[in-house]
């Protein structure tokens, strides 16, 4: 019987992701503690986070509007298991539709009592109102803010 050979491997590449003009403007506004949406001239949806075109209508977005800072939690998960390369649990991640927006955006929800996961989940299933809370030093990244209960 031949001894089977396995060869170790490792991928370790660095990248730079180019966000484009629309997201760059969105991030610049975040530094001013404003969450912005871009409007589709056809369907009139305010798309948040802002982007350069509406994929449903194949149209360039036009008017930019500020949304939030409060909104409604739409759906969530409470991450309870640790995975390599991901932050330590428990973590609450949710989609929130900010007031004035037609689409939801994903971010973390901070400041919840997670001592009883079932009870915390039941509370979040009631779709609480939340608001945007900025960190101390905005970097112009999507991680500049998180959601907290309003």
């Amino acid at each position: 019987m031949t001894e089977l050979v396995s060869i170790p491997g490792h991928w370790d590449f660095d990248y730079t992701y180019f966000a484009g003009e629309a997201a760059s403007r969105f991030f610049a506004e975040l530094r001013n503690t404003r969450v912005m949406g871009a409007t589709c001239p056809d369907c009139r949806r305010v798309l948040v986070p802002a982007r350069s075109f509406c994929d449903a209508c194949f149209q360039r977005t036009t008017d930019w509007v500020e949304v939030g800072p409060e909104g409604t939690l739409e759906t969530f998960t409470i991450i309870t298991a640790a995975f390599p390369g991901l932050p330590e649990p428990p973590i609450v991640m949710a989609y929130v539709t900010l007031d004035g927006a037609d689409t939801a955006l994903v971010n973390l929800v901070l400041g919840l009592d997670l001592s009883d996961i079932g009870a915390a989940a039941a509370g979040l299933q009631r779709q609480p109102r939340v608001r945007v809370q900025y960190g101390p030093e905005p970097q112009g990244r999507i991680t500049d803010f998180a959601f907290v209960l309003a």
Partner: protein
Amino acid sequence: MSEPVAVLGVGQTTYKRRHPESSAADLIWAAAEEALADAGLGIDAVDVIIAGVAPDALAGENCVEKTAIFGTGKPFLRVNTGGVTGSSTAFAGASYVASGRARAALVVSLERMGQASTSQRVFNTIFDPVYEKDFPLTTITMAALRASMLMRVYGYSERDWAEIAARNYRHALRNPLAHLHLEVTPEDVLDSPLLAWPIHRLEACPMSEGACALVLGGRDLAAGRNAAWIQGMASTSDSYAMGDRIRRPEGSLVDLLSLQRSAVRAYADAGVSDPRKEFGVVELYSPFSSAEAMTYPALGFCAPLDGPRFIQEQQEDPSLPVFNPSGGPQAANPVSATAMVRIAECALQVRGLAGDRQVADVRRAVATGQGGATQFSTVCVLGTQTP
């Protein structure tokens, strides 16, 4: 379609966490060799070869299919549409046959994720680097975000997720190709560790690897062979952004609009009007119970609010089709191949070659696929009758 297309041969390796005994090329070879033998055809009869592999990073090698380019001198394509890679690959091959550009197509999909030690980290890279990658979005948390929404909107419970998972594991006990052979009750599922509420360990698919191949041919090659005819096939895209679909009036994130639209088109081509009565077997791309539940209304089996009751109906009404006789992706999820495995299983069931898991008298079966953040869906109807 112009020329009708049939599945003439099926080849599969087993699906398991790792195949340390085989190189990637060996796995592709094994599936292709078996599919050609099943069809009774040699490699020279094949006019096009199409390979399906999803993220290269799962294998840790770019274009992992390159070392298995055999039968040279023909067109060769590689397909990657995430979770629907397998069915996209099959549809691409079927299109060559339907258009008359190939008498026979060999399609093969490979999942080599057994070479990866941190798959959820790789899966984080399938999300948008600008607005999403900084969050712990993975295949598991993406499913959990939908499962909690399904519970709120359509009244599913954690118990429902456990019932679906237990049935899939039970079916897999009769499938020697399946990765997991577990005797698991719904209670066992609920007692397994919570990964991301509401998803428990035994409700999530395993990481599996293996290869699946099909030989597709037209009417002339099907003559005298045991053929499963593709009576309808449709592939539909949707907006990528999950947040855009949450309040969408024509179909929310958990309404699986892309699958619904694929079903309408494939059923129309196949002449299916009552899916509850006209299918013997349903093979679903459902790596999580919640992913399975989302398909029921999209495929026309029940109204959205009747989904939880439909789980019970499946156990009580023998006139309904058998769901996931293979055990489905909860018992084996070789991601790149999974959507082709659904078609392979339907073809085996229609041809009466499904062994211990054979469902009696399957005249028609339906296979689904879901890819990415469900921005891609496929439906494939197979049957004994030439379309």
